[in-house]
């Protein structure tokens, strides 16, 4: 295997990984941007997306249907949670939000275990996307190419959505000044529920897309949340562009890092997190919380 082939393959790997991370990060950053809370349960919603996706695929026999249905279900669950529980906490300190979303993580983890059992689940990629394509003589999974494309489409779409639609404008406005938007007559509470739902839904999409690659399992949650958190710290909490950049950065470090030092993936994440926090000492949230 020549170096060019290796490089391209690994770069594509990193891009596909980055796409998955992007789905997670953009959801978390969106929630933080609008609501100023860190959704600790974000990893759990990701996991939920994978498991619901598994069931959806088995129910409908169609991966694409699952890709639509599962995130919607996850988004609904997220919005319901915000409505029922998070709403009661506004005005309390950040610790309360963290604890409650942590509690949700526990609840979801157990609900998932009850519903689907402890064994890791295999979600097959759709037939149209399975198999490999040859790049410079190296085989590369088509599914991963699909991920890169999906990530790119959503990144572009999200950007356009924020720039050109009314809801996008509303979201951007609210993230800058919530009171002002409220004064203008918009129902902030509705915006919040919607945004939390969308954020969780995005995590859910990430979960469904990730399922064929990693096989859904109960360990996904906490590591996903750490990865995502590192990304949004790097890119900037509440910044859409930041979530793209951060996701790509982390993905490249992870992919090339695990190639050269296979056992140290988690240590790498920790190291990145610590480094970022040293360069920006309070953490981004340290200043805003």
């Amino acid at each position: 295997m020549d170096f060019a082939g290796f490089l391209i393959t690994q770069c594509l790997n990193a891009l596909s990984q980055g796409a998955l991370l992007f789905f997670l990060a953009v959801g978390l950053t969106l929630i933080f941007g609008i609501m100023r809370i860190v959704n600790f349960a974000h990893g759990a919603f990701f996991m939920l997306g994978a498991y619901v996706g598994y069931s959806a695929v088995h129910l409908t026999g169609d991966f694409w249907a699952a890709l639509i249905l599962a995130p919607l279900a996850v988004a609904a669950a997220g919005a319901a949670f915000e409505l029922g529980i998070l709403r009661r906490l506004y005005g309390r300190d950040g610790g309360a939000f963290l604890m409650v979303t942590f509690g949700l993580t526990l609840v979801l983890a157990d609900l998932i275990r009850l519903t689907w059992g402890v064994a890791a689940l295999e979600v097959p990629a759709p037939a149209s996307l399975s198999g490999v394509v040859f790049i410079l003589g190296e085989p590369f999974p088509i599914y991963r190419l699909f991920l890169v494309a999906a990530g790119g489409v959503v990144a572009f779409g999200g950007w356009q959505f924020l720039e050109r639609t009314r809801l996008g404008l509303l979201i951007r406005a609210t993230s800058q000044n919530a009171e002002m938007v409220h004064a203008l007559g918009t129902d902030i509470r509705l915006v919040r529920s919607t945004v939390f739902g969308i954020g969780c839904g995005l995590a859910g999409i990430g979960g469904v897309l990730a399922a064929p690659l990693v096989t859904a399992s109960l360990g996904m949650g906490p590591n996903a949340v750490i990865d995502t958190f590192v990304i949004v710290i790097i890119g900037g909490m509440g910044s859409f562009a930041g979530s793209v950049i951060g996701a790509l950065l982390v993905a490249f470090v992870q992919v090339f890092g695990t190639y050269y030092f296979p056992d140290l993936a988690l240590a790498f994440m920790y190291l990145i997190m610590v480094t970022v926090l040293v360069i920006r000492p309070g953490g981004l949230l340290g200043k805003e919380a």
Partner: protein
Amino acid sequence: MTIRLGLLAAVLLLALAPLGLPIYAMTLLTEALILGLFAMSLDLMVGYTRLLSFGHAAAYGLGAYAAGNLLLHTAIPLVFAVVLAALLSGVVAIGVGWVCTLATGVSFSMLTLAFAQLLYAVAFKWTAVTGASDGLAGIPRSAGPFGMTAFQGKTGFYYLVLIFLLLAFVLCRALVNSPFGAVLRGIRENESKTRALGYNTRAYKVAVVAIAYGLGGLAGALYAPFAGFANTELLYWLFSGQVLIMVIVGGAGTLIGPILGAGFFLLVQQYLSVYTDSWALFFGLVFIAFVLFVPQGIWGLATARLGRAGRR
């Protein structure tokens, strides 16, 4: 005054317990005391300094594996092994605390979680020390070269745990009522003002993390010879969550509350697991409910009713 008497009575009851309780109840009680110690150690961080840790299992696991190794591979007697393991936890925690306090708020919490996850991953790989996924088994309650057999039996070990818990409690009480404790309280209520007054708040935070991990490590170090084994479950994030639940539900910032929370947790877990497998779900829901509606916890509620401020 009533509370003081009540506590004395409780200690007396605990001291006399082996005389009246059947063996399975004693085993449960021993485990409750160990978890109580664990929860109380976290309270120093969460309740008194508002340093929310999602990775306290790291302390427990460190202590358990350290004690396990000492007891399995050396002739060090039980009590010394436990103390050494606790010290090890505390020392490691200085470094951990130093890193984690680089950040505040959510970032701090994430760093504690990340460290625990890291330790969890390491434990799977470092077979020589941790036995990887099998863990360490057959951990003895060594009498050591001087034949200290007093704590080897079930009852003897129970008293060992009780003594350690009481000592730790006295230590913690002294700490939170001291000038050091007053600074912790300042950090809890307004860290930037505390800094503006001239305190090096970072140093205090690192110190309280070290102490909390040391005592948490003590609990883990007691667990290893109690159960006879140590495994990666002790480092798992779910366990970190459970001890946090014990603190909040029991009553953060009271030292006693978390001990009660641990007992409550264990009791309910035992009772529920007869009927269902999902006591974790139950506790997650209880946790959320308490954070929402009873943030002062059971003990906070009880002491408020008795006419005294819940926090000291």
